[in-house]
């Protein structure tokens, strides 16, 4: 009965979302406060109903209720509890339900914390949020009902896609969705602002925390996904410029740009229509990512639940949301007046440079991702665009971005001098140059570009820290506001990521050797001995596991046990790598093809600074959260609310 309750709750949620998506809009246009207030009640009700639905599906998974088709297809009674729960969103229907849940929760959060918002703005934001919800709930109910029953119920289920049975991947989708869906709130704010015809400093202050929250979750989600790819795909790399990875990177880049441009709106009352556009784009790119993963128009290592029919629905939805938003933008945005001109050498000038570069990066990724599709359709040529393209385009654009990143915080608003700012960065600059020279001469003389990038990493960390240090000295060691502290952490974190990426990408070394049990090899001062290779039978795979003994100076150091699993149903081999880390480097082993007669192909990687990539991503998210906890940004902070209940109707600033 509980699955039916979930199903009914979902239907009710759709009905409530329809109300929430229409009446408050009408109220805002007419100035009817009762209709507007309906938005808050509806948002909370809708969230409650979707929570009930999600809870019902979770209950079906936890108790292994095999009368529910979705549970049969994706779960198994013998599965560990963690994967029973993560199985809820480890499939198309459940992940869409999770998406709807997060969407409803964000809507409820706006209703709860948005008391300080003007009534018209809040009701419009909630209505837009509900209209997006209508799309997802209708999609769920009409094409992907997670509560469908099977009769008679089978004795046991088919089990979850084995690739997803991994702690890294259990939490990757929820975090990513929190990021994707978080941008729906900024989208709703942008549309509401276009409807209101007004974008001002207060608006920017309300948008920023939501952007920041979404950005933090997206950063964590991408980091976790990259970590998963690193240890599961067995190629020693951490980023493969795969379409699905790119799909999550594009909203991140747009979101990062939005984060910065919203500051300009807040402080200088400028860049308004640009910021609104970014807010629309950040969410649109999130939807585009969903479309690319699920429709099967591009091939990818991640592609799951590919179905052209669903693809058509998501495309229609994407067109409705993005097309509607952009059409409204084309109509209303020209009326948003920006405040005054400003100097190129100033804080706002630096932020504009940041925006230009970030958007160029996003456009580069978009082009590289979709180019194979365009070319195939137009000419029938099959190409794949991979690391060489992105190394030649994406990486060079990062250089000016990183160079300017440390200088920006030194520049004052309105008008600033470049030279004094640079002088105060001289220590960081000299240290970065020394680091680059040391890297070029002592570590790896062939990789000049890597040495340069290493210098940039050091520059980012020291440049951010020196600004922080000098500010401390200037203010007599009073801790700066948390927003500024968060900025320092996030900026320095970029440096940590860069160092990790350079170490792993450029200075890694690899040993590939065919070994038979008893064979020895020498690798980075370690004596490696292949002890044995044994066959294992997993629940739905067959595997071979190698045992490698590593010793240094005659003393045993560690044991690495890489596996190679063959999942017969998915036609896919998965390398279960073995990694030993000491936070400065990873020792990484994979087992390749082979047999007892000829030996097995063993690959060993030595990846310097590899853990720093994920450490940096976590630090960046931490910086975002610290900034989010700043009082001035706290949602519902008492600012601007005074303007509430003035004339609500359209006030185009003409």
């Amino acid at each position, binding site marked *: 009965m509980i699955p039916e309750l979930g199903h009914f709750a979902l239907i009710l949620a759709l009905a409530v979302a329809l109300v929430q998506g229409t009446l408050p809009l009408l109220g805002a246009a007419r100035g009817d406060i009762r209709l507007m207030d309906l938005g808050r009640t509806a948002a909370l009700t809708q969230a409650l109903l979707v929570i009930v639905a999600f809870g019902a599906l979770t209950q079906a998974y936890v108790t292994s209720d095999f009368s529910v088709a979705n549970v049969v297809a994706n779960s198994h009674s013998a599965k560990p509890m963690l994967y029973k729960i993560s199985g809820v969103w480890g499939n198309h229907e459940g992940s869409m339900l999770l998406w709807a849940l997060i969407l409803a929760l964000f809507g409820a959060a706006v209703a709860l914390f948005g008391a300080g918002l003007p009534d018209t703005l809040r009701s419009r934001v909630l209505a837009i949020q509900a209209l997006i919800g209508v799309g997802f709930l209708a999609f769920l109910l009409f094409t992907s009902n997670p509560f469908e029953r099977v009769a008679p119920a089978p004795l046991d289920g088919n089990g979850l896609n084995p690739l997803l049975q991994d702690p890294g991947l259990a939490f990757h989708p929820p975090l990513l969705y929190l990021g994707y869906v978080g941008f729906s709130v900024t989208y709703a704010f942008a549309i509401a602002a276009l409807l209101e015809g007004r974008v001002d400093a207060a608006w920017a202050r309300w948008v920023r925390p939501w952007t920041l929250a979404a950005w933090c979750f997206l950063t964590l989600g991408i980091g976790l996904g990259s970590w998963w790819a690193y240890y599961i795909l067995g190629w020693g790399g951490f980023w493969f410029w795969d379409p699905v990875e790119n799909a999550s990177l594009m909203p991140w880049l747009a979101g990062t740009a939005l984060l910065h441009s919203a500051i300009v709106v807040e402080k200088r009352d400028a860049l308004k229509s640009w910021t609104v556009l970014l807010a629309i784009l950040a969410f649109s790119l999130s939807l585009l990512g969903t479309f690319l993963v699920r*429709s099967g128009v591009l*091939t990818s290592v991640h592609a799951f639940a590919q179905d052209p029919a669903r693809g058509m629905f998501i*495309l229609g939805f994407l067109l409705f949301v993005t097309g509607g938003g952009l059409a409204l933008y084309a109509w209303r945005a020209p009326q948003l007046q920006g405040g005054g001109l400003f100097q190129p050498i100033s804080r706002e000038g630096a932020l504009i440079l940041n925006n230009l570069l970030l958007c160029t990066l996003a456009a580069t990724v978009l082009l590289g991702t979709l180019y194979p599709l365009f070319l*195939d359709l137009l000419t029938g040529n099959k190409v794949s665009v991979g690391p060489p393209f992105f190394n030649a385009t994406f990486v060079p654009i990062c250089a000016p971005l990183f160079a300017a990143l440390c200088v920006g915080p030194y520049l004052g608003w309105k008008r600033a001098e470049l030279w004094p700012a640079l002088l105060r960065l001289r220590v960081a600059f000299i240290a970065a140059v020394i680091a680059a020279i040391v890297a070029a001469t002592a570590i790896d003389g062939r990789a000049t570009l890597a040495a340069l990038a290493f210098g940039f990493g050091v520059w980012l960390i020291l440049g951010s820290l020196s600004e922080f240090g000098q500010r401390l000295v200037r203010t007599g060691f009073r801790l700066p506001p948390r927003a500024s502290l968060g900025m320092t952490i996030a900026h320095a974190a970029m440096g940590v990521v860069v160092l990790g990426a350079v170490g792993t990408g450029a200075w890694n070394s690899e040993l590939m050797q065919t070994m038979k049990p008893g064979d020895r090899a020498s690798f980075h001062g370690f004596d490696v001995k292949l002890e044995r290779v044994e066959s294992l039978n997993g629940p739905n795979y067959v595997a071979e596991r190698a045992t490698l003994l590593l010793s240094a100076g005659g003393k045993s150091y560690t044991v690495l046990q890489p596996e190679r699993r063959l999942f017969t149903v998915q036609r896919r081999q998965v390398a279960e790598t073995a990694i030993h880390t000491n936070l400065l480097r990873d020792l990484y082993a994979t087992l390749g093809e082979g047999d007892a007669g000829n030996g097995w192909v063993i690959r060993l990687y030595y990846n310097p600074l590899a853990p720093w990539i994920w450490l940096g991503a976590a630090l960046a998210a931490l910086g975002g959260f610290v900034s989010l906890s700043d009082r001035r940004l706290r949602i519902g902070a008492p600012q601007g609310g005074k303007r509430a209940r003035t004339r609500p109707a359209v006030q185009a600033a003409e």
Partner: protein
Amino acid sequence: MNRRLLFILPLLTLALMAGFFAWSLLAGRDPASIGSVLVGRPAPRLEVKALREGEPPLTDALLKTGKPAIVNFFASWCTPCLAEHPLFTRLAQREGAVIIGVAWKNKPAEANAWLKRLGDPYKFAGADVEGRTGLDWGLSGVPETYLVDGQGIVRRHFRGPITERDVNETILPFLKGAK
């Protein structure tokens, strides 16, 4: 007016992209396929010595018997071949399919030992020790499987192991239809 145009630009970009997406979805293209030039054409030359002792070598005549045939390139050192092996056994025993196996870059002794251990579904078996025939057939690795109709025309080309689904949805209808 020019300023207006600037604000419409994002919408136009979206329209262009969406057009491509819809085209791609409606055309039903498979992005994972690297294609096969053989489909619809006569099968390449099949001329390999027999894998099993004392049998005559394999020739083109086997592909033009008027009955459809399945040509499967395999090797004893290939793990995915292990995965698809039971399906071929089923096809041979239950459906009476004519399956021609070619051991690719595999020592005949090892391939024979492998077949002895797992069972031999191949009506005819060849040994392409040097990999020359595989080259003619456009092999990118093993396993690969070709469906050849009674007139010797290639109708389908699978790269990678065949699955239960391939058997049910493609191979069985092919065997019935091509008779």
